[in-house]
């Protein structure tokens, strides 16, 4: 047991560069605009806050199981992975390069609360440019795979960006939503949502819930090697579909029916019961393999 734990390298605990080291083929990573060439945020400097050399995101190229890929990895420990002007511009530039060079995939390690509020409109514009660039890259036939399992999850604008990607791989520790728990509590009150109730937060936004709901293509262990294998397995099977209005309409219809079914529920437990899970109380304690088996056994 001890050796099993020692053999695991947590994605949640790792820095962006440590995640890249565990995900890409050994020795294949090449950073574009590394810390020596990138610039720290001028907006943070004006506010008298120290920036990061790379503005909190590592972009570049590498190989995954021998296939050429481009990557963008957000550093959640720097300002909550929030997207500022330079941070966003690096991601947008990388995605545009992907649309041109057509690598096998873009791997997008999302670990972010969304817009960096210190940068106000520049951050908001950066997020909208990322959204457009993700869609343009996919339209060029290049899959964009989001990997979510960091401490900041994927919230705010980055929650939307995650859903615009071809697919999301998530760990139980990962979270995905639009408004973050603290934001909801601040705006609507603790009666609406108690952001201190961590199990509630995970039952509503956490990786297991998102996987059961079909929002994420895969649930993986909180482990660098598991994310790597999950990405390899997903990309081996995935063919990026051409953009189509009929697919969009079908998705819209599915979302409307989902809203109609679940909108009065207050907790993931109610949603899981409604999905046909006999013992929703047991879900938070299930390990990854049991949960995947449970989901595969559900009526579709």
């Amino acid at each position, binding site marked *: 047991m001890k050796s099993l734990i020692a053999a695991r390298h947590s994605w949640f605990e790792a*820095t962006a*560069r440590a995640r890249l080291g565990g995900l890409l083929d050994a020795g294949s990573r090449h950073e574009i605009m*590394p*810390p*020596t060439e990138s610039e*720290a945020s001028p907006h943070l*400097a004006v506010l*008298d*806050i*120290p*920036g*990061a*050399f790379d503005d*909190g995101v590592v972009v570049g190229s590498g190989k995954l199981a021998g296939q050429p890929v481009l990557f963008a990895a957000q*550093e959640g*420990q*720097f*300002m909550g992975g929030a997207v500022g002007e330079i941070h966003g511009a690096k991601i947008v530039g990388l995605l545009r390069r992907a649309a041109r060079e057509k690598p096998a995939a873009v791997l997008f390690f999302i670990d972010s609360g969304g817009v960096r509020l210190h940068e106000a409109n520049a951050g908001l514009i950066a997020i909208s440019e990322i959204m457009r660039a993700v869609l343009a890259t996919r339209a060029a036939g290049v899959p964009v795979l989001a990997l979510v399992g960091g401490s900041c999850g994927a919230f705010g604008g980055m929650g939307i960006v995650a859903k615009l990607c071809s697919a999301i791989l998530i760990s139980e520790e990962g979270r995905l939503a639009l408004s973050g728990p603290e934001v909801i509590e601040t705006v609507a009150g603790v009666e609406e949502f108690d952001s201190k109730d961590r199990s509630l937060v995970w039952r509503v936004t956490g990786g297991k819930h998102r996987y059961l709901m079909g929002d994420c293509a895969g649930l993986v262990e909180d482990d660098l090697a598991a994310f790597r294998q999950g990405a390899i397995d997903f990309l081996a099977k995935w063919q990026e579909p051409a953009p189509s209005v009929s697919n969009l309409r079908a998705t819209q219809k599915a979302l409307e029916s989902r809203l109609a079914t679940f909108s009065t529920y207050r907790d993931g437990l109610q949603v899981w019961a409604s999905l046909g899970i006999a013992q929703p109380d047991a879900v938070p304690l299930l390990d990854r393999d049991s949960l995947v088996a449970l989901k595969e056994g559900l009526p579709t």
Partner: protein
Amino acid sequence: MEKLDFSFDSAPVSRSTDPALCGVVGSGNLEILVQSGVKPGTCEICIKTAARGFGDTWRAVIGSFAASHAAGGTVIAINDMGATPAVVSLRLAQALAEYQGGA
């Protein structure tokens, strides 16, 4: 934010990984970028820190680092978000080890 610049005499270091980066600008943490400089017997350090008024502490920590490690011929840039002196010392040793290729 406070900007601090220091220059200390230090025995020359052999380089393997240039540049070397370690740490993250997170709460109680800092990032350190080590690059090669032109003066082989000098370690130049430029610090941007969120905590004002700790210039003397920085001078003591960096001075002790430059005296106890061979760090000459380097230019070190630091972005700090309130790391304690113990964390700073550990990160400096880690960054230098990485620069020498032994991380």
